[in-house]
């Protein structure tokens, strides 16, 4: 479905590459985790896939195939079609990812307004349905509220509703649970898992939190300094890590014993 081949990214005015030749595949309906520490290049990778990083800011080489079509070599028109329809993104900070002076409802249905000729009522119905799918049973009530009136967890559900509304093939989730507290975190993870299963939607889940990845993903790619050092099934990565870096990452997960020891 999504296939990244030998992707290199170098920001203009910087000597070294932020992403140094990575290969990654995400199959239909699969949830793949992309983990690594800050600065390892995982967010840059996501930005390139989403089309948020243009040639004006960075030199990008390699191929990103979505169902066989190369996103890097298609024209602007195709990219705009793909963005917001086939690939949708959920960001880390739901509060800042929403327009603070626009009501919730119009923001959720925005991509339908842009990509389709649906009537207002149809759009509203679909958007409300997506919100209910994203565990927001009181969608009608939320429709006319502003982002500051909602909690972080609710906002993240709203963002997820907006992202799944056009029924994308791929959902890019860039640390969607990092800004949330632990109970909400697990609810959001369960939600993503259910949506992926119900809709056959692939998810590329970017995180630095191995515990979160372990709960959600079937496969994990570990990034270090712009390279993927290990790709394997989640359990294998956790129990039989290959690379030194992965071993150190796993050793860095705080456990009760370690915390008591300190």
């Amino acid at each position, binding site marked *: 479905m999504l296939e990244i081949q030998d992707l290199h990214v170098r920001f203009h005015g910087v000597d070294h590459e932020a992403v140094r030749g990575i290969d990654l595949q995400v199959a239909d309906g699969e949830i793949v985790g992309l983990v690594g520490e800050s600065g390892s290049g995982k967010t840059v990778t996501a930005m390139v896939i*989403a*089309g*948020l990083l243009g040639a004006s800011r960075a030199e990008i080489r390699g191929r990103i195939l979505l169902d066989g079509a190369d996103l890097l070599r298609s024209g602007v028109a195709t990219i*705009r*079609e793909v*963005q*917001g*329809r086939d690939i*949708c*993104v959920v*960001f880390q*900070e739901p509060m*800042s*990812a*929403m*327009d*603070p*002076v*626009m009501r919730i409802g119009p923001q959720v249905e*925005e*991509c339908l307004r*842009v*990509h389709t000729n649906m009537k207002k009522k149809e759009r509203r119905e679909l958007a409300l349905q997506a919100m209910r799918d994203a565990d927001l049973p009181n969608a009608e009530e939320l429709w006319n509220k502003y982002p*500051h009136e909602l909690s972080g967890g609710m906002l993240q559900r709203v*963002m997820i509703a*907006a992202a799944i509304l056009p029924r994308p093939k791929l959902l890019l989730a860039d640390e969607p649970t990092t800004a949330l507290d632990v109970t909400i975190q697990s609810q959001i993870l369960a939600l993503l898992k259910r949506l992926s299963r119900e809709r056959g939607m692939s998810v590329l889940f970017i995180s630095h939190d191995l515990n979160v990845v372990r709960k959600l993903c079937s496969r994990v790619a570990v990034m270090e300094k712009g390279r993927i050092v290990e790709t394997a099934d989640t359990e294998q990565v956790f129990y039989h890590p290959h690379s030194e870096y992965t071993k150190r990452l796993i050793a860095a997960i705080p456990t009760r014993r370690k915390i008591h020891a300190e």
Partner: protein
Amino acid sequence: MRRGKRLNATELTGLILTVCMVLLAVMGSIWTPYSPTAMSAAAKFAPPGWLHLFGTDQFGRDIFSRVLCGMRTTVFIALCAVAIGALAGISIGALTGYFGGWADELLMRFNDALTAFPSILLALVFIAVLGFGKYNVILALGVAFIPSFARVSRAEFARHREMTYVKSARLMGASHGRIMFRHILPNTGSVLLPALVIGFNNAVLAEAGMSYLGIGVKAPDVSLGYMLSESQSYMMTAPWYVLCTGLTIVLLILGVSLIGEGLQKRGRA
């Protein structure tokens, strides 16, 4: 980000004052106690009284009626000038701030050059080229106001361009125009609104200044600035003339300033 909906004391005072002044200005265009141009040799320099609320001027014209008329002209000129300046300035600022690049550099350096001139001087050049009259004053002031609006809105658009909600709108496939005007513009309200209000005040003062210098409106049109410049010759014989005109300008500006100040406080909160 939560902002109170209730007006604070500053805004309330300003609002009441402004509404009163605007009502008077509107009244001036419908009804005045006397014709603003009717002369009366018998009533030259009559002091304020029941017959003439603000007294009369050197031709025996009723100052209150003239103040009402003048206020209408002044408010009209200020509103139009701000509208021109804001429309052009915010459009330029939006485009340059949002897109950046060399066009941004070029326009902003040009803007710096324009800012180097005092706006009244710039307006003076315009009048010299275009000639006198109410509409030329509007045009001159409007153009003179473009740089400041462009600067303020450019900074805001450049700041918001990098925010996640803009990226997210972009990802949903929203066009540049839609992002600029549907998403960013409403978010810049807390900065642009006070700028508009302050701009209005500056326009009132600039109009008064221009008329005072004799490059503003021409008779039979009457504006507050025009009256002020006329009244200074009779400051000793008819002090009510200059006082009533000057106080009207002060009250008009005070009201609007208070609103502006209240809005700014709100933006900071």
